[in-house]
């Protein structure tokens, strides 16, 4: 075997088209501030951070198999860290975003060490309990406003930008940047050798270990990285809201339930899933939220229907039927003629040529 007699293909035609469409959409979004449509910008900010949160949860649950229902622990923690850094350490709000993320990553290490002793449903419930503990803990911190919470100091608000319009532009750009970064990071990770290992863990954790994958370290790494990113998104969310309280920061319905809904509806274990889930979630919200509780009932029914009849999610249905793949992480092998011939006469397949 002197020349490599094979070729490994990763892009597909649908991925080239899909990525081009997404790129154009992103350019459109970057031009949106020129129209000065601030209501739409606020909606896009919300969509952007939910997309980033959903990408992170998808990596955690869909690949590393860590079904956490307590990611709002890190959203709230990140938010609170931003307020603490700005109000008590005099940091600029924008620089505080990555630091809040870093601190969320740090706090997730002891959480992981505790939670990784649990598996399956116990892990899920455990993470929820952790989020509740975080909430109760922040009730007890008077410096951060205790149970009634706190507002971002006026001086810090002016630090972001002097005008409200300038602030909204900065938040808008930051939210887009975080959403793009989350997609790029997950895509790059899944295409690397660690993506192979994560997918292997998803399919059989025991066999992954037997082929040399350090499953504990990889899962820990993903948990901490996802917590850091989630914390940074949380910091941005509450920077936009300018106000934080334990009840709002650690709200399971507002955050974890919505994220899980988005990923499950769209298609868990696929990067495209959260995009589709986001579209459906916001479409439903914008069209039916006037009907009050009916909106939530509709969401619930849709989630149940998908889980019963289309466990791959809506993107799973589309992708499998039309064979499209916008973010291909798989490797397609093309063998040349020589290998093809070899394939039909190998030592484990007895043929007449063998003695």
């Amino acid at each position, binding site marked *: *075997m002197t020349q*490599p007699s*094979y070729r*490994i293909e990763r892009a597909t035609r649908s991925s080239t088209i899909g990525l081009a469409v997404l790129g154009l959409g992103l350019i459109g979004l970057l031009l949106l501030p020129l129209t000065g449509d601030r209501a739409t910008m606020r909606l896009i900010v919300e969509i952007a951070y939910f997309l980033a949160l959903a990408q992170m949860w998808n990596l955690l649950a869909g690949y590393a198999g860590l079904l956490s229902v307590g990611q709002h622990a890190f959203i709230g923690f990140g938010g609170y860290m931003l307020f603490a850094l700005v109000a008590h350490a005099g940091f600029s709000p924008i620089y505080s975003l990555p630091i809040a993320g870093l601190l969320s990553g740090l706090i997730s290490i002891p959480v992981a060490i505790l939670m990784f002793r649990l598996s399956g449903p116990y892990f899920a419930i455990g993470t929820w309990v952790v989020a509740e503990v975080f909430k109760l803990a922040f009730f007890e911190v008077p410096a951060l406003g205790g149970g009634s919470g706190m507002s971002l100091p006026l001086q810090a608000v002016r630090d972001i930008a002097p005008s409200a319009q300038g602030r909204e532009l900065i938040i808008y750009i930051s939210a887009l940047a975080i959403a793009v970064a989350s997609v790029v990071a997950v895509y790059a990770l899944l295409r690397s*050798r660690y993506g*192979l*290992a994560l*997918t*292997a863990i*998803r*399919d*059989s954790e*025991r*066999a*992954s*270990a*037997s*082929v*040399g*994958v*350090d*499953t*504990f370290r990889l899962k820990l790494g993903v948990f901490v990285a996802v917590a850091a990113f989630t914390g940074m998104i949380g910091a941005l969310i509450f920077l936009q809201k300018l106000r934080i309280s334990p009840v709002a920061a650690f709200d399971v319905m507002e955050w974890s339930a919505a994220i899980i809904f988005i990923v499950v509806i769209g298609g868990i274990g696929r990067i495209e899933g959260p995009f589709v889930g986001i579209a459906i979630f916001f479409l439903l919200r914008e069209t039916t939220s006037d009907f009050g509780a009916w909106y939530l009932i509709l969401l619930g029914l849709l989630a149940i229907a998908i889980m019963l009849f289309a466990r791959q999610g809506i993107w799973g249905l589309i992708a499998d039927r039309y064979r499209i793949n916008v973010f291909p992480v*798989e*490797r*397609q*092998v093309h*063998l040349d003629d020589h*290998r093809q011939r*070899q*394939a*039909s006469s*190998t*030592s*484990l*397949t*007895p043929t007449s040529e*063998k003695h």
Partner: protein
Amino acid sequence: MTPPLLELRHVCKAFGKVVIADGINLTLNENEGLGIIGPNGAGKSTLFNLITGDLSPNGGDILISGKSVLSQRPHQRCRSGVGRSYQIPHPFGKMSVFENVLTAATFGGAAAMGEAEAMSLEILGVTGLLNDVNTPAGKLTLLKRKRLELARALSTRPRLLLLDEIAGGLTEAEVQALISTIRDIRRSGVSLIWIEHIVHALLATVDRLVVLNGGMFLADGDPHEVMRAPDVQRIYMGVEPA
């Protein structure tokens, strides 16, 4: 003197009152091939799980190249050179056959990506899976899943290969083909422990045969002599008319 590749020292394992290993001693040298036979439920697969670290023994010590590996977790033992196949295949179901093997080559085999890709295809060729490179592993027939177990174990570049009943269900022609593959693997310097009910496949490939029964080795030695031993004849008559 170089220490043996694998050494079990007085290894004990019990599940509740069921004793699987009752002070087992075993030494395997570099380049040696060992066959293990024994009745169903004798604990043959459990012995593999103890060697790979999937299970911990209740007592005793397990050494690879003279170093105790009891504190090592399964992935570390894989990187220390232990490659294994599971009796009940554990494929990465949604990954392609190629990616299954590639994962083993990049992690267990510690190969760089380009090298791992070439090695994976080479091994898929040897194990007769080249026609299925892009097939999701979960869609393979049981027979091909067993081949994939072998391919994946080989891709970790083992010094010691543990095979658990990979010949079961094969036709006679396929068994012959497997025997020649295993001989090639052994010639490349890989040591082997093979649990198998198809005794003639073992006789054709290993230097030594042990019989596991009641938590200990009933016989240990030249395969043909072991098969002639009266105790072995008695235990094996009903199971495998040789």
